[in-house]
């Protein structure tokens, strides 16, 4: 089972695309696997005949567990693919755990890896192990083991280190991560709850799919760690409604997708983020990092649950391009065909809750981001125009939920008003290209 994402620890075999006895070519799709993040086809890392399937369909195994055996493989390893999966995280080379060789050209031995220095170069100062990790290879191994310090602290405080986000090499949980988690959550918050009462007849235990479990864990983390604050603005969208009505048929004919209000909202958000970069920041351990790229996550509802694919560098796209990108991501999300890099790197999330008919929503922030904006249902309402005339206008509420550690109401409100102003400025003359 390949490593399909930095924090992914296991995968479920959905469907074997080859059966024992069949030949398989190098890189030919071999098995479909579901993880918390994505569903992917694993291409075969070897050429040969599939001789044994080790994990039947429906079974879940940890990352690194052997999936199958292929005869005639060039390499000696079993089919735990290091090359598999679209855009997997590359496994680091195992550092030689042994001491450096005693042979002569082995200057400056830094255990466990020899420092390659060129003796002919005067004072070769950059003779240090470049990206070498100390000790064991990261990723695969580091996610699921805890150093003595981490294990001790966790045990002393009754907290499960597996739910702590790791900031160390390969994503490992460090002692400081545990200390930070303890500062964030009061002690005893992780004590197991009292045993639940026995289920009555007709009751059914709900099994969580990997996606649902992941959502649950992330929501808990967000609720626990982030002080959420919320505000709402009302946006007069009669111009936007008019423009969309005018363009939609032609747009569909030209681009093959529906033009909704969402790409306009994303556009307004990316433009407004340029003036409020603090809301385009993400947490990296204890540091808040203002990101240069504006990668907007767009919430998509799928049968398995909420997925938030990301439009990278969304500020570079026109409204048309955004509409196409959103449609592509949403349909792939529903078809469970997202790639790993579709769901990573987001800096801000937009959630079009309006499709559910709501007029106000209080979502949880998509950690490690610091804000999330929703666009509610467009409804016709009586509004005051001019001094005191009443007109019927299309109005859309826009809510902003933000991490109150990072900024205050005045800045958050100013951002929301900037988005509102941009949306209200859309009129039949606005270009979408």
């Amino acid at each position: 089972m390949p490593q399909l994402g930095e924090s992914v620890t296991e995968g479920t075999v959905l469907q074997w695309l080859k059966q024992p006895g069949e030949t398989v070519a190098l890189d030919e799709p071999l098995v479909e696997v579901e993880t918390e993040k994505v569903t992917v086809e694993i291409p075969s890392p070897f050429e040969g005949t599939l001789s044994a399937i080790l994990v039947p369909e429906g079974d879940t195994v940890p990352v690194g567990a052997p999936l199958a055996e292929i005869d005639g493989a060039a390499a000696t390893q079993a089919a735990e693919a290091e090359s598999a999966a679209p855009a997997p995280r590359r496994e680091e080379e195992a550092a030689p755990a042994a001491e450096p060789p005693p042979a002569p050209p082995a200057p400056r031995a830094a255990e466990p890896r020899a420092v390659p220095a060129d003796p002919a170069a005067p004072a070769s100062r950059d003779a240090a192990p470049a990206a070498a990790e100390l000790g064991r290879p990261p990723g695969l191994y580091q996610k699921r083991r805890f150093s003595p310090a981490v294990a001790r602290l966790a045990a002393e405080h009754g907290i499960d280190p597996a739910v702590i986000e790791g900031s160390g090499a390969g994503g490992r949980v460090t002692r400081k991560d545990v200390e930070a988690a303890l500062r964030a959550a009061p002690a005893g918050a992780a004590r197991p709850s009292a045993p639940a009462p026995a289920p009555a007849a007709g009751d059914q235990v709900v099994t969580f799919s990997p996606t649902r479990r992941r959502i649950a864990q992330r929501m808990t983390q967000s609720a626990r760690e982030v002080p959420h604050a919320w505000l709402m603005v009302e946006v007069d969208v009669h111009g936007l409604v008019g423009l969309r009505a005018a363009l939609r048929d032609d747009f569909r004919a030209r681009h093959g997708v529906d033009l909704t209000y969402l790409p306009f909202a994303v556009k307004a958000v990316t433009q407004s983020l340029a003036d409020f970069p603090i809301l385009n920041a993400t947490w990296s351990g204890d540091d808040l990092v203002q990101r240069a790229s504006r990668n907007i996550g767009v919430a998509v509802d799928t049968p398995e649950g909420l997925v938030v694919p990301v439009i990278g560098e969304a500020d570079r796209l026109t409204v048309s391009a955004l509409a196409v990108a959103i449609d592509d991501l949403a349909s792939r999300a529903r078809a469970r065909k997202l790639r790993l890099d579709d769901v990573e790197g987001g800096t801000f999330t937009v959630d079009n809750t309006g499709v559910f008919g709501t007029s106000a929503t209080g979502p949880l922030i998509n950690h490690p981001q610091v804000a999330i904006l929703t666009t509610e249902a467009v409804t016709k309402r009586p509004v005051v125009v001019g001094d005191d005339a009443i007109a019927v206008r299309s109005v859309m509420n826009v809510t902003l939920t933000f991490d109150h550690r990072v900024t205050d109401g005045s800045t958050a409100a100013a951002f929301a008003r900037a988005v509102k102003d941009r949306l209200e400025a859309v009129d039949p003359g606005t270009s979408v290209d």
Partner: protein
Amino acid sequence: MTERSMAEALNWALGEILAADERTFVLGEDVEAGGVFRVTQGLADRFGRGRVVDTPLAESGFVGAAIGASLAGMRPIVEVQFIDFILPAVNQLISEAAKMRYRSQSDWTVPLVVRTPFGGGVHGGLYHSQSFEALFGHVPGLKVVVPSTPSDAAALLAAAVADPDPVLLLEHKRMYRLFKEEMPDTLACADLGRAVVRREGDDVTVFAYGLMTHETLQAAETLADEGVSCHVVDLRSIAPLDTQAIVDGAQRTGKVLIVHEDHLTGGIGAEVAAIVAREAFDYLDAPVTRIGGPDVPAMGYHPALESAFMPNHETIATVARQLAAY
């Protein structure tokens, strides 16, 4: 208070010691003329050639004679001109000096001090650059101390002379005139078996001694600018090792780096690592890591070979940085 380099501090301390205790005397090659590093400069004029004695080029002989003198109630302070030359005297030191108390059930002790320059960085080539603290540190019955500052050098010398058992005082030759320190004008007597915290920090602990203490402190400055804080412990005593300081230092950050100029394999860093691994196991947050000189037969004479051999603040910073990020 007076500013002194390490060589000046030792010279001054020797003067104080010779003046205070008539059992003490200095012997070694060229000590009457002041010694090749001028550590004994002026002492023969001040105390006479009966107390500052030139020896022949015969380490086994004059170390053996010093052992004999100490058994007769004197307090000899031997200077071996370069630690590289101590090897002929190893039999005297290990078979005789180290075992005398044990074998006589404390009837006889050897209050011997052997002072000797070690280490590289002065274009000394193969026979003026070696480190042997691991060799002697491995011998029960011998104490080995390594100062990192002029005041430590003086105070450790005083303590070594006062100690009733053999003590090797290893002075890094590159540090003799590396910097000056403001020192009081009364001679202190150090605690022989104690390490010293030279810099407090929370991200990674580095144990070092001798010249490497300074390279480490320099690396710590660089890393501090990057937001990595190093806890630097100057081991100072190689035998006995200050186990409590080692454990405390390891527990402080959970990430331990040990640096010495001596060859990596079997160097004293291995002993420190073993202590950490056992006594501070539950506090470890990263593999215990060492930096040492390479396991090649010698530090070369060519400057490029010499600097390739010696750990320095950049290589220390590189490894400490990785460890902090682990």
